[in-house]
């Protein structure tokens, strides 16, 4: 098995205020994965990312990026890592393109002869080519975010660390970012992407880690995670048949049926959805719709923490 692209051992940050923002987390981001780093506001995602990049010194624990220990190995490994940390930040009076040139000039390992070509390609890729010559100050929120992504894509990267990449983007932009992440992952780039909006990046992730109050509650393949939750069956029928439907489902062994208008929801347990369908039809229940649902990540989070997906402190 290839070693993970990002790994941490007991990574902890206690700020001078005394707050433990990150509490001994064991991160493991497999090579080639799209790792959704999720958690409510203030759960410690950005602080973790800052420690991974060597911006913040851990109080305890260690971290490795592409097998290099951080922060010592930063000089050699960071050129292979594209980053977006806590929103984009650029010089307001420089144009988008000049800002990219500035970052490229800072990179001792970048070839200055290809700066223009690479920055234009990156701007093109994030749909910002038309605004390349505008000062950053005049960019809209979404344009700023896109420039941040362009900076992360200035060179071919083995790893992308994107903190809230969809922040401020319109639905179209959010879709584009998901698409971009998918595309990069398909080309072999490992992507660590954080978000406090569970649904926003859920769909592109192959792996998920969920933070809450500085702790990494779970991390696993996304499919394995969602399979942990109880599947439910939702049957839609006519309002005067919900009674019969409930009886049939209970007889089959489905648990806790809940009636809501023409819908009956019950937990599937080990019953196959097709068995339930056949039984309902056999009992003369007119089935208008039927769906076997896995719990959403949000529900999973609630079951894990017993709380909503809100700021905890």
């Amino acid at each position, binding site marked *: 098995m290839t070693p993970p692209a990002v790994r941490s051992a007991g990574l902890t940050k206690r700020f001078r205020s005394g707050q433990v923002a990150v509490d001994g987390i064991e991160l493991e981001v497999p090579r080639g994965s799209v790792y959704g780093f999720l958690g409510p506001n203030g759960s410690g995602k950005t602080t973790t990312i800052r420690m991974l990049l060597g*911006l913040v010194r851990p109080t305890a624990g260690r971290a490795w990026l592409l097998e290099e220990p951080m922060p010592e190995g930063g000089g050699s490994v960071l050129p292979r890592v594209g*980053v977006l*940390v806590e929103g984009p*930040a650029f010089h*307001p009076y420089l144009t988008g393109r000049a800002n990219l*040139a500035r970052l490229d000039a800072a*990179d*001792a390992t970048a070839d*200055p002869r290809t700066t223009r070509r690479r920055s234009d390609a990156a701007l093109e890729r994030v749909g910002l080519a038309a605004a390349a010559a505008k000062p950053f100050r005049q960019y809209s929120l979404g344009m700023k975010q896109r420039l941040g992504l362009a900076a992360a894509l200035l060179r071919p990267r083995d790893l992308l660390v994107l903190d809230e990449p969809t922040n401020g983007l319109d639905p179209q932009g959010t879709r584009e970012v998901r698409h971009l992440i998918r595309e990069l992952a398909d080309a072999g780039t490992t992507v660590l992407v954080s978000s406090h909006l569970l649904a926003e990046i859920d769909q592109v992730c192959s792996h998920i880690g969920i933070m809450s109050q500085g702790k990494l509650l779970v991390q696993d393949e996304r499919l394995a995670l969602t399979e942990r939750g109880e599947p439910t069956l939702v049957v839609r029928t006519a309002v005067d048949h919900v009674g019969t439907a409930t009886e049939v489902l209970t007889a089959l062994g489905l648990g806790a049926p809940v009636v809501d208008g023409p819908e009956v929801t019950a937990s599937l347990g080990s019953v196959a959805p097709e068995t339930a369908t056949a039984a309902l039809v056999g009992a003369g229940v007119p089935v208008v719709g039927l769906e076997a649902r896995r719990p959403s990540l949000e529900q999973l989070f609630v079951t894990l923490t017993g709380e909503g997906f809100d700021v905890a402190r």
Partner: protein
Amino acid sequence: MSRAEGGSRLLRSELSLVFGRRRNITLLVGLATVPLLLGIVLFVTQDSALAGQGPGFVGRVTGNGLFLVVSSLVMCLPFLLPLTIGIASGDAIAGEAQAGTLRYLLAVPVSRTRVLVVKAVAALAFAGAAVAAIALMALLSGAVLFGLDDVTLLSGSTVPLGEGVLRIAGVAVYVGLSLTGLVAVGLFFSTLTEVPVGAMAATVVVAIVSAVLDTLPQLAAIHPGLLTHHWLDFAEFLRLEVDWGVLGEGLAVQGAWVAIFASLAWSRFTTADVTS
């Protein structure tokens, strides 16, 4: 591609950032108007009863435009030059921290030592440019308004124009080097905060407090080590026999301030959490 080349690329980028910024250009233009205004005032009043009055070398300007360089530098030393240094050096790290660009610079990656060195060199270059802007504009205005002549030294003896220009250039270089300590102080303050204005103000305050302490006779013992104590020692260049010992001492004091505050800035910046 070598590290050195990469380093100079970043330095070039930094210099174009500093010298391309409108605020900084305005500052240089503002400084350059000081000798122009001073020259015009002296030119207009030279036939009046006020002629020959004024602090420092002002009285000599109407006789020889070359002295406008010295007078202008003397005028700018107490406040305008410290303000310029404060703005350039206080902004160095704190400005990037406030804009959030510091975290991206460090993630490029650029080592923190290199960021600090590049920022220091750019701030020093700006300090040099500030002194040069005053000196060159003074030379130009002085030449046009009063003409240039052989230089009469403090002792009353006269040296030819060529040597006079060299001596005046020496004054400007000494003034520029006298500001290096303050640049280091500003750079250190700049590593302490994410609020550039705070670092700028603190730097200016240091220069002013140093000048005030320098006037208190009770503190005579510490005067030689004060940041601003030797700033006016450039007058050595206007003596027949330049006492290099005096100039050397002034520069040594600056060197000590630079060494102390550069070390402080380095130890602070290389260990600080970047949470901006």
